């Protein structure tokens, strides 16, 4: 009964989204205010019904209703309740339903928070969002319903959630990522609405900026958590694999990063308009392309989902309509857009333009690397594979000018700068960062390669130059304390984002250079030394969890004969499906992670163990979290929050 309500409710939601797509767009076209005014309530109604539908699936999963095919395949009665909830997005159908919740949620929030927009624009934004909703709901209802029943013969026990997904990281990773992907559809809708209206001015940029920033924040956090999950769960200490599915999330992130820098230029200076619109279209297009790649099984990856050409065909057709339509509209309208505003070479405009160039080149590298093997094969040239070495090399080369620019960029003012004013800051920054890095690395490590030195210096440089910028900007207002208060929210967001990036750069450089690992065979009482730490193997004990059993290797970690920690590296065997999972034990620290994975049992009571010492690996995720906070900070920016009163006033004016 409840699953049927879920399906029915989703059908109602789709009816509403069809109306949401037609009414406001038609109303805006003909100037019919009554039709346009229907949009917000339709959007909120659609969200309510999608929520009911999602709640129905969660209910089915919590009550172990194995007559529902999706629940039977992705859950089991022994699964802890929180994993029963997360199992609703552990498979394809449920994941798409979660996507729908996000899509409808964003649409509803846009409807509620866009009162200050002129009706013509507001209606068009919601109409485009409605169109996207129609596409995804049609897909769910026709091709991938999670409410299918297995009647009359249904299993008494479910197949359980993939053990890899039974992890706290997996509880939040997909929702965050989807929030980001779908959030970019808001920026997309603003761009399309602006193109339809024919008014590509800086107010458009101002309105779409907070949405883009928030979506980008979610995307950053989603990618960060995903990387952390891979590190903790896959058992071999890696944190990024250049897997097609990871690339699919990196591409929209890179373009969205370019977009929010470009939006600031369009907002403040009224230039780069057509470019910004193109980025907004591209960011969401790449989210959709990513979904297509993941969901169609077109590319084999560790994340591979079931292959189904029908589904792939639908998503491709939808992709073609949305992206093709968007780009066609862009081609029609953009030649009428003219940007005014002059600037010299040494200016913030040019710095941000270069930022965009680097980010777009990076995106193209990832896109090519992901699609080229497929294109190559389709052209009958045989199978090739493009992997880590290619991406690492390309990104290492790009990073150098990018990071240098990232330090200088904030120093620059709009329009033009005198080189003489910059000289001192740059000189101080370079000297300080080189000095700090040299002292740091040469005192801590015996061997420092030029490449490690360069990469770490770049990270330090980004941090130092940002600090210099804060101090000089604050000093303008008399005392430092007073000055710090006067700096705006979006300035602090920039600071957070750049400092976060500095952490990531330094973290990648150091952990790539100084990670050590050892494969050892140990008996009870054996001790192995790795760097300054001694690992004493205390033996193996049996463990029993709610839906698995297994062994835990107990290892005491000592440093100078003091006990640092005791690690339990588990090897689990899940009851249903009999899958083995390595649950690595990690002692996390600010400057180093100790990482331990239990291997096979060898002869005579010995076990194989893999021990990693990973310096500064945590900085990657610290950086990632800082970057995403930068995105969320915009929510506190007063400039983008209009009081209800002014909103009503603006709405009243726009009616006229």
């Amino acid at each position, binding site marked *: 009964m409840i699953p049927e309500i879920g399906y029915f409710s989703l059908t109602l939601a789709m009816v509403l989204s069809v109306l949401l797509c037609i009414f406001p767009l038609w109303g805006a076209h003909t100037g019919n205010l009554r039709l346009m005014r229907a949009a917000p309530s339709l959007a909120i109604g659609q969200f309510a019904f999608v929520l009911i539908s999602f709640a129905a699936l969660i209910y089915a999963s919590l009550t172990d209703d194995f007559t529902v095919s999706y629940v039977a395949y992705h859950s089991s009665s022994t699964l802890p309740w929180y994993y029963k909830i997360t199992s609703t997005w552990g498979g394809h159908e449920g994941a798409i339903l979660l996507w729908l919740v996000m899509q409808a949620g964003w649409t509803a929030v846009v409807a509620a928070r866009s009162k200050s927009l002129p009706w013509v624009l507001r209606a068009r934004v919601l109409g485009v969002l409605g169109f996207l909703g129609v596409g995804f709901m049609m897909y769910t209802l026709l091709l991938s319903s999670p409410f299918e029943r297995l009647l009359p013969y249904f299993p008494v026990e479910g197949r359980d959630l993939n053990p890899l997904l039974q992890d706290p990281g997996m509880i939040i990773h997909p929702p965050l990522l989807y929030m980001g992907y779908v959030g970019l559809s808001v920026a997309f809708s603003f761009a399309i609405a602006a193109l339809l209206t024919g008014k590509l001015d800086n107010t458009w940029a101002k309105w779409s900026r907070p949405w883009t920033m928030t979506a980008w924040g979610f995307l950053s956090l989603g990618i960060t958590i995903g990387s952390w999950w891979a590190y903790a769960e896959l058992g071999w200490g890696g944190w990024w694999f250049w897997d097609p599915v990871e690339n699919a999330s990196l591409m929209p992130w890179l373009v969205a990063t370019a977009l929010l820098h470009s939006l600031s230029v369009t907002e403040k200076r009224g230039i780069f308009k*057509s470019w910004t619109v*193109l980025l907004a*279209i*591209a960011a969401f*297009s790449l989210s959709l*392309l990513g979904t*297509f790649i993941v969901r*169609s*099984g*077109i*590319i*084999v990856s560790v994340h591979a989902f079931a*292959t189904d*050409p029908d589904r*792939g*065909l639908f998503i*491709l057709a939808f*992709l*073609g309509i949305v*992206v*093709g339509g968007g*780009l*066609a509209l*862009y*081609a*029609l309208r*953009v*030649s009428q857009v003219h940007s005014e505003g002059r600037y010299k070479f040494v200016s913030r405009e040019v710095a941000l333009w270069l930022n965009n160039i680097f980010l777009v080149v990076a995106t193209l590298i990832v896109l090519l690397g992901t*699609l080229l093997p*497929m*294109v190559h*094969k*389709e052209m009958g040239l*045989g*199978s090739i594979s493009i992997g880590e070495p290619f991406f690492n090399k390309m990104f290492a080369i790009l990073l150098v000018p990018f990071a240098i620019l990232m330090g200088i960029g904030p120093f620059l003012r709009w329009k033009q700068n005198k080189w003489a004013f910059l000289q001192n800051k740059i000189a101080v920054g370079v000297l300080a960062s080189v000095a700090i890095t040299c002292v740091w690395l040469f005192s801590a490590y015996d061997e420092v390669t030029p490449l490690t030195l360069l990469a770490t210096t770049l990270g330090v440089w980004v941090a130092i130059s940002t600090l210099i910028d804060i101090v000089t900007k604050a000093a303008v207002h008399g005392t430092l304390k007073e000055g710090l208060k006067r700096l705006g929210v979006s300035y602090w967001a920039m600071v957070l984002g750049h400092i976060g990036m500095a952490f990531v750069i330094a973290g990648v450089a150091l952990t790539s250079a100084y990670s050590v690992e050892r494969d050892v065979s140990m008996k009870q009482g054996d001790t192995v030394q790795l760097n300054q730490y001694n690992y004493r193997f205390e033996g193996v004990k049996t463990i029993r969890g709610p839906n698995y059993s297994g062994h835990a290797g107990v290892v005491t970690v000592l440093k100078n004969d003091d006990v640092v920690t005791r690690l339990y590296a588990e090897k689990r065997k899940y009851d249903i499906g009999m899958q083995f999972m390595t649950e690595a034990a990690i002692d996390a620290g600010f400057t180093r992670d100790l990482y331990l994975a239990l291997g096979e049992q060898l002869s005579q009571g010995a076990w194989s163990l893999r021990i990693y010492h990973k310096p500064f690996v945590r900085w990657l995720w610290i950086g990632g979290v800082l970057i995403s906070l930068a995105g969320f900070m915009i929510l506190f920016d007063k400039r983008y929050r209009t009081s209800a009163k002014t909103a009503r006033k603006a709405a009243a004016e726009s009616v006229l």
Partner: protein
Amino acid sequence: MNRKLLAIAPLLAFAFICIFLYQGLFANPREIQTGRIGHEMPAFTLPDLMQDNKQWTNEALKGEVYLLNVWGTWCPTCLAELGYLTKLREQGVKIIGLYYVQGYDADFDGPFDMQALRTEVQDMLERAGNPYQFNILDLHRTLSLDLGVSGAPETFLIDKNGTILLHHTGDINPRVWRSKFAPMMQELK
């Protein structure tokens, strides 16, 4: 004109990508293209897994129809197919093992522990059945590379003249044997 061209460029690029995505949709990504079918076995000289001072070459293997089965003790699917392969041996199919050593790198791992591997192989074959006439040790994975092996288990069917007729990835079970190998074996008789 230039400006218009620039405006339409993204659309064209996207259309181009779509064509390939469409084609890719109907291709089986797991299908491995082996350029080797119909060609002769690549030339090699490799040691026997179990005996010292015994070398095998491509020439020495000519004259009989045989299966070349790429496997390793580290590979659970290989373990699973040993039983069925042993049955095939009992039916008179000649199976030669190509032992695929995973992850060994002389630069890092020092001298190879031959004795340990032999013990391990012997243990496993005693437990699960031994389908092999003999095993060739491909320590540096050179022959595997020449054959286009992407993992284990993989099996090649080779005729009397040393020509590769079939390349199968994944395990061999009764179903695969009936549909893929048996018809060809019939023809060769």
